[in-house]
Structure formats: C-alpha cells, structure tokens
C-alpha cells in the first residue's frame, strides 16, 4: 500500500490559495480607486496568501504524485474548505473589520461556503474594498473552488473523476459534456457570464458599481451577503426584480441552465427535478402570497414579496425582504421547510437538494403502495430512469445525517443560550448555506449573528462547512471506522 499522498493535497491547496491571492487584486484596485485607505492592509494579506500558496505549492507539494485515492479526495475537499477560509480571515483582521478572530472566521467561512451569515451589523459602513472582498469570497466559493481545480487539473493530468464525486457527493450528475474538464469550463463560463450580466443590469438600474458587483456576486453564488443593513429594498424596486430573477436561476442546476441558454429546450421539461423546482416554487409563492395578503398587505405587494422571498429561500440565497419579525407562523414554517429542502442538485445552492427529496418522497409513497398491495413491485424513477436501490439507501442515510447534524448543532446552540426553535432554525439555515435564520428572537431581532457567543459562532462555522462538503466528506475523515483502518497500515 502506498503512503498517504499529503503532498498532493498541499499542492492543490497551494494552487487555490494563489487563485485567492489573484482575486485579492480586485479589492486592492477598488481600494486605490475609492481611496478608502485599506490598500496596504489588503495588499499585505494578499501577499501573505500568495506566499503561503507558493510555499504549499512549490515547497511542500513539490514532488506530488498525481494520483488520488478515495479517502484522499475527502481529505482534499475538507482541507481546501478549511484552509482557504482560514487564510481568508487575514483581510478582515488586517483591516479591522471584525472585532475578534472568531468573528473573522465566522465571516470568512460564511463567505467561502456561500452561506451569507454575517456578524457585520452595518455593512454600509464598511469600506468599499472590504465589501468587494466579502462578495468575492462568496463568488470564489460559489461554484465550488474544486471545480476550478478540475479545470486546472487537466494540466496536472490528475484523475478528476474522484474529486468531482467528492464535491457533489451522492448526486448523480447530468453530464454537461462527456469530457469533464470541458464541462467544467462551460459551467464556469455560465457562472461568470451571469455575474457580469447581473452587475451590468443592476448598474443600469442606477445602483452604484460596487453595490451592483457585490449584490451580483452574492446572488449568483447563492451566498447572500448584503451591502447595507436595509436589505435589497434599499437598491430600488428595479433592482429587486433583477435580483429575484437571478436568484431563481441560480438555484437551477448549471447543466440545465446551459441547455436553457443554448436553446436546447426539447427535453427540458422532462427533467423531473426542474419540474419539481418550478412547481414547488409556484406552490410556495401562492401560499406565501395568501399569508402576506391575510396580514393586510396589498395583493400586488404580497405577490411581489412572496416571489422574492421564495426565490431567495429556495435558491438558499437568503435575502430577506420584510424581516422575519413581520412574518406569520405559516411563512416561518414554510421558509424553514424550504431551507432544509434546498436548491437543485448541481447548483451553487445548499440544503438536502431537491433531487434527494424527490427520490425520498417517491420511495415513501411506493412503500405505502407496497403495504396495500404486498405482491406488487414498485420502483422509483427519475427522469425516466430507474433509481438504483443502493442509491436510494445512500439518499436516506444522507437525509438522516442531515437531520442529526441539525439537531446536534441546535443542541450546542441551546447551551450557548438560544431558545430551542431559534437554535434549530439557526442550525438549519447555516447547514443549508442559506444565512440568516427565519426565527430571530434570541438575536435581539436583528438578522446578523454578531451577538452570539464565540462557541456558537464556531459551531455554526462547522455546520456551514459540513453543509458545503455535503457531510460525507467531513464525516468520513473523522469516523472511527476510517481511522481504525488507517492506523493499521
């Protein structure tokens, strides 16, 4: 048995750090342009990231073998999602944006995992460069930095299949293109195109450039960092519409998006997951509209709020327009359920993912039918294809684990002094990479997490990470079963 290939993990992490360092150029440029005095702090942190990246890539990971075992790909996934956010705290610390290291970690993890939970109460008081940096972390996190890597690995000649599997664990992918590297390039280009398009539209609607860019990054990556404490409303009605549309699309599988925008519409509607996404969206909007209307809002306003709110929840962006204080119970519970369900698989959104939920619900329905007709044989089909039994049991295990994580996270949060519903909602909102919790009693009525004790912030950061790497990768490397075998070698 060959030795554990930690050199390669270091190498890839190093390469990704270089990308982050390159990304740092943008905030630095903004800083110089707007003269907010942050250029040195940002440049220093950029330099540190660059140096560490180079060190990891060229010194530690120098003679890396380009082969990846199953468990190593888990390590790689987790390492990347831990190391990058940790280095990502540097700009926050140097610019003095956050009060403590814990806050910086929270903000950085929230950014890279595209969660969008924030400890910053008044984002409008942040210098534009820091705002840009915050948005950029989400954007980089967005499509899964690892997909970057896959594109990059083409040059390295690494077997990309394993990584791809680790990143989108358990979701059988509709392949964009037989050759993975090429399909990743396509994904990436859609992603980039969306960001640029949205920034341009927002700018044309009269939003200033920094806000437009930051909002676009937050939306397309389904992150949800805001640029001001008033929410999206402060950008104007036109901007709200734009954001709504883009949120809706960012919750859609990238492969499906590609088909939509290349006008290959023929088999589009036969995609079961897309169909469910649309139907669920319409149903949720209807319920939500009724709920808002019953509270005495005008019909037009309720409809508009609902569409925005549901798009934001289903894509796990997490922009809240009327703050949760004004929601009825119905809206809160509906929101909670949608948060846990999450977006389509293969999108940048989080949650259990619609695909798994569909399979689960279908299987349960079949089970009931089986109870009535014990001799009949029922199978689960998705998109006209049979779903294998092994896969179904994986889905069940995943959902079970997801619930366990939420409950366990909620438990620790209650120790930190949150009430039980608050704790559960916060845990769910963060593991689903949504951001602000739909219940905010113990946060003093504000959407940001600044008032939580340090332990709670760390726990939420871990939950974000777990949600982003889809549990298994994280769980596999801490499982006793794995270590027992590892240590035996």
């Amino acid at each position: 048995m060959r030795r554990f290939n930690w050199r390669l993990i270091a190498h890839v992490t190093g390469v990704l750090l270089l990308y982050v360092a390159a990304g740092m150029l943008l905030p630095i440029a903004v800083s110089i342009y707007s003269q907010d005095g942050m250029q040195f702090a940002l440049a220093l942190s950029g330099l540190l990231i660059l140096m560490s990246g180079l060190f990891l890539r060229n010194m530690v990971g120098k003679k890396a073998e380009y082969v990846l075992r199953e468990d190593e790909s888990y390590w790689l996934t987790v390492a990347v999602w831990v190391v990058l956010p940790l280095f990502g705290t540097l700009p926050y610390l140097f610019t003095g944006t956050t009060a403590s290291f814990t806050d910086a970690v929270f903000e950085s993890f929230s950014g890279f995992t595209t969660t969008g939970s924030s400890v910053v109460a008044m984002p409008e008081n942040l210098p534009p460069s820091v705002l840009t940096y915050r948005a950029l972390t989400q954007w980089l996190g967005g499509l899964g930095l690892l997909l970057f890597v896959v594109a990059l690995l083409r040059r390295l000649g690494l077997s990309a299949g394993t990584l791809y599997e680790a990143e989108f664990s358990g979701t059988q992918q509709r392949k964009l293109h037989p050759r993975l590297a090429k399909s990743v390039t396509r994904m990436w280009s859609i992603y980039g195109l969306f960001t640029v398009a949205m920034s341009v539209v927002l700018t044309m609607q009269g939003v200033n450039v920094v806000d437009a860019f930051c909002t676009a990054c937050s939306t397309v990556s389904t992150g949800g960092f805001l640029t001001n404490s008033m929410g999206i409303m402060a950008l104007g009605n036109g901007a709200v519409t734009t954001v709504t549309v883009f949120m809706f699309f960012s919750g859609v599988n990238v492969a499906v998006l590609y088909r939509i925008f290349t006008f290959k519409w023929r088999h589009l509607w036969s995609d079961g997951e897309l169909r469910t996404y649309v139907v669920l969206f319409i149903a949720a909007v209807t319920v939500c509209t009724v709920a808002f209307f019953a509270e005495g809002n005008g019909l037009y306003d309720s409809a508009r709020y609902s569409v925005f709110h549901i798009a934001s929840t289903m894509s796990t962006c997490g922009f809240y327009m009327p703050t949760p204080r004004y929601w009825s119970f119905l809206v809160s519970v509906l929101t909670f359920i949608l948060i846990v369900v999450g977006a389509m698989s293969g999108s940048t959104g989080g949650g259990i993912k619609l695909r798994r939920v569909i399979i689960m619900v279908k299987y349960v329905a079949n089970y009931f039918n089986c109870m009535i007709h014990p001799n009949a044989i029922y199978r689960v089909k998705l998109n006209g294809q049979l779903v294998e039994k092994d896969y179904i049991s994986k889905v069940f295990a995943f959902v079970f684990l997801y619930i366990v994580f939420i409950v366990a996270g909620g438990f620790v949060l209650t120790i930190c002094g949150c009430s039980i519903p608050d704790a559960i909602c916060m845990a769910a909102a963060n593991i689903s990479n949504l951001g602000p919790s739909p219940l905010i009693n113990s946060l003093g009525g504000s959407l940001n997490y600044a008032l939580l004790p340090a332990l709670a912030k760390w726990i939420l950061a871990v939950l974000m990470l777990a949600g982003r790497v889809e549990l298994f990768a994280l769980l596999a490397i801490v499982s006793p079963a794995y270590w027992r075998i590892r240590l035996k070698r």
Partner: protein
Amino acid sequence: MRFLGIVLMVEGLMILSCLIPALHFSDGTWEQIALSGLFTFFVGLLLKVRFRRARTMHNRRMAYLLVVLMWVVLGLFGTLPFLTTGTLIHFPDALFESMSGITSTGATVFSAVEWLPSSILLWRSMTQWFGGFGIVLLVLALVPSMGINKYSLYTAEASGADNTGKQSSTMGSTVRHTLGVYILLTFLFIFLLYKSGMHIWDAVNITFTNISSGGFSIYNNSLQGLTHLQQYIVALAMLLSGVNFALLFNFFTFRWDKLSHKLEQFLFYLCTVVAASLFVICALVFAMGYSWGDAIRNGLVQTISVITTSGSLVADTSQWWVPVSFLFVVLSLCGAMAGSTTGGLKAMRVLILVRHVRKILRDRLHPQSVNPVRLNGKPVSSHIVTNVMVIFMVFVMVIFIGIMLLMLSGINATESIGAVIACITGYGPGLGISGGFGCYAHFTTPAKLICSLLMLMGRLECLTVLILFIPAFWKK
C-alpha cells in the same frame, strides 16, 4: 365489526370497574360512571350480536382499517366518564384526555388533578395501563381465533417493528407470555410501593401509569411529593417498562441462552440511559446549582422517565436549563426498546439507522468491500433497513406537518415543537407552559384535536394511520 364490539365490551367493563373507588370513597360519581360503563358495554354487545355472522377476513387493508378504527372508537367512548361526570365539559378536552390515556401519552388538560373524583383518577390510570400494553393485543390474546388473520393485525399495530424475534411460533402465546410479564410486573411494583409505605390507592395508580410508560398522575406535582426511595422504585418500574417484554420473559423463565437475540438493543438502551443521565446530572449541578444527591436522584429518575416516554416528573422540568429540555426532546424521540410499552423511534431502529450510515461510509471509503448492517452479530435484511428508514422519514415529515398545523392554530413555536414531539412519542409534557407541571388546557380546540391525532399516530407508528389517507387504499 364484531371484533370492535368485543373491544368495546371490554372497555365497558373497564369503566364499570371504576365504580369500586367511586363507591369506596363515595365521591358521588357512581351513577354517571355506571351509566357510561353500561352504555359502552351495550353498544359493544349490540355490535357483536349484529355482526355475529360477519365474514372472516384475511385482507390486509381491513386489518389496517380495523386497528385504527378500534383505537379511535376506544378514544371516543373513553370520553364518556369525563363528560358524564362533568369533569370536562368540552368534547375536544375529553377526547384529548382520553386519547392521551389509551395511547399512554400522559399529556393532560387538567391543571390540577387532586380535586378530581377518585373514579376519574382510576379511569385515567386504567386507560394507560390497558393502552400501554395495547388493548387490541390484549383482546387478541384472550379471545380464541376469530377468523381474523391475527398476524396482519399484529403487524398493523406494531408496523413490523420487531418481527425478528418472536419467542413462540404462534402469535397467541407470544401475546400471552407478554401479558403475563406485564401483569407480574404490575403486581410486583404495587407490592414494592405498598411496602415502602405508600397507600394502596396511590400505589395502584402510580404503578398503572408508570409500568405502562403513560405518565398521568394523581398528584399535581407528579412524583415530587414521593419519598426518595419511592421515586427510585418508580424509576425502576419505568426502566423495566422500556425493556422488550420478550426479553424479560426469557429472563424470568431462565431461558438465558435466548437473551442474546436482543442483547445489543438492550445494551444500547442502557448506555443511552447512563450517558444521558450523566449529562443531565452534571447540568443540574453545574448550571442550576443542585446538590450532588438531589441532582443524581432528579437527573436519573427524570432521564429514565423521558427515555421510556413515561412523562412522570420529579421536578418542574419546564424550569430546567434549556439544553436539558432539548436533550429530553431528542431522547423521547429515540425512545426505549421495541416491543415494550414505550413510544418514539425505539432503540433498535436508532441502532439500525446509525449502522446504516456507517455502512454507507465504509462503502464509500472501500468501494470493493461488502458491509452488511449487523445487529446482534447477524446481518439485517435490507427489507428491514428500508422499513426503518421509511418509518424515520415518515416520523420526521409528520412532526414537521404537526408543528406547522399547531402553529397555524395559534400556538407559539417552542410549544408547538414540544407538544408535537410529546404527543407523537407519547412522552406527555411539552415545552413552555404545557411542559413541566403545566397542562394543555390553554391549547385551542383545533390544536387539541391535532394533538389527539398525533398521539394516535405515534402509538400506531404513523404508517398504519397514514395509509388510510392514501387514495389507493380505498380503491377496489
């Protein structure tokens, strides 16, 4: 329908037996009790006679329907003593109380129980005692073959929870053995409590509600007023009520070689009790300033009460530290061993769920290896694993929907979560006002009805009730 009649007759007799305390303590309710008892008995008799020539049935669907119907009817007729004596005026209240009794939940709408007539108190305790065992199974055991496919009734009632290790090949004797253990334990604990200086009346009531893991009490402060020794005795009763009765039977009849069939579940159950109690004890000492002695007693007894979903209280738990309440919610969801009187998911299912996740992890790390889910050293068939998975998912969905409905009927978030989980697991006390020594009196009418339904669902493990709502069920 004939079966239904017999069940009703039994219930009528049960109500009539409440006459004993009514007459003994002369609390002035004997007329009403006799009336409702006789009424129930005669409706039952009528049904039995009317449907004397009913065809035998082997239909699975009928079995599901029958089981649910029986529990509903039992609940409905169980309201009679409350309504006729005027202790509860509103029907939803009475239904809630009655359902809570026969499903051995222990949630109550009475803010103070001490002023209730003794006959009603006994009625509450007795419904739990019968309900805890599963009155349907009881009738099954006593009445010789009625042409009904008993096994399908059994699976309908227990959702195929523990069909892995019946100790006898025939259904009837399984039930009789189990019943024997149940009655033996009841007498044992009545005796123990009596010996510890308790009045025989108290001893009977407390044993009835705790051996069935029900949790109704005849005192406002539940177990708090008991002596320490008595509290420990009750805790032991609850602990045993959480053990699989087949296991107990084998233990008491010295068939120790058969114990290994369920050993792992048992150990898991004990480990959960120990681990959870340790946490609760530490929490009580460090976060709430109890002395060690008090903390150990309160923590241990209360944790056992939660895991076995009894819901008897040694202190006002609604005042306890929030994480402890949260832990209690989770523990009651896990529940004790399958094949006992307790509710929740049951230790066996939790074990299977955890092992299944471990299997999936192993499969991923070593794609070539074969990793079956094992229990007690034997591989569990994939059929059972999926059954467990489905029950878990259905549980979760029902809880979600329940919480949503309760919130819609005007209950706040904390209480909704508490009430739904307390009702579906059969624990009893919820969170907030409905938790601790509080009661469910302030719930709105729809909320009470929803809770009653949830108790029924929890008792029948969801699937049996839910299947009636599937359109395909009603198609020919």
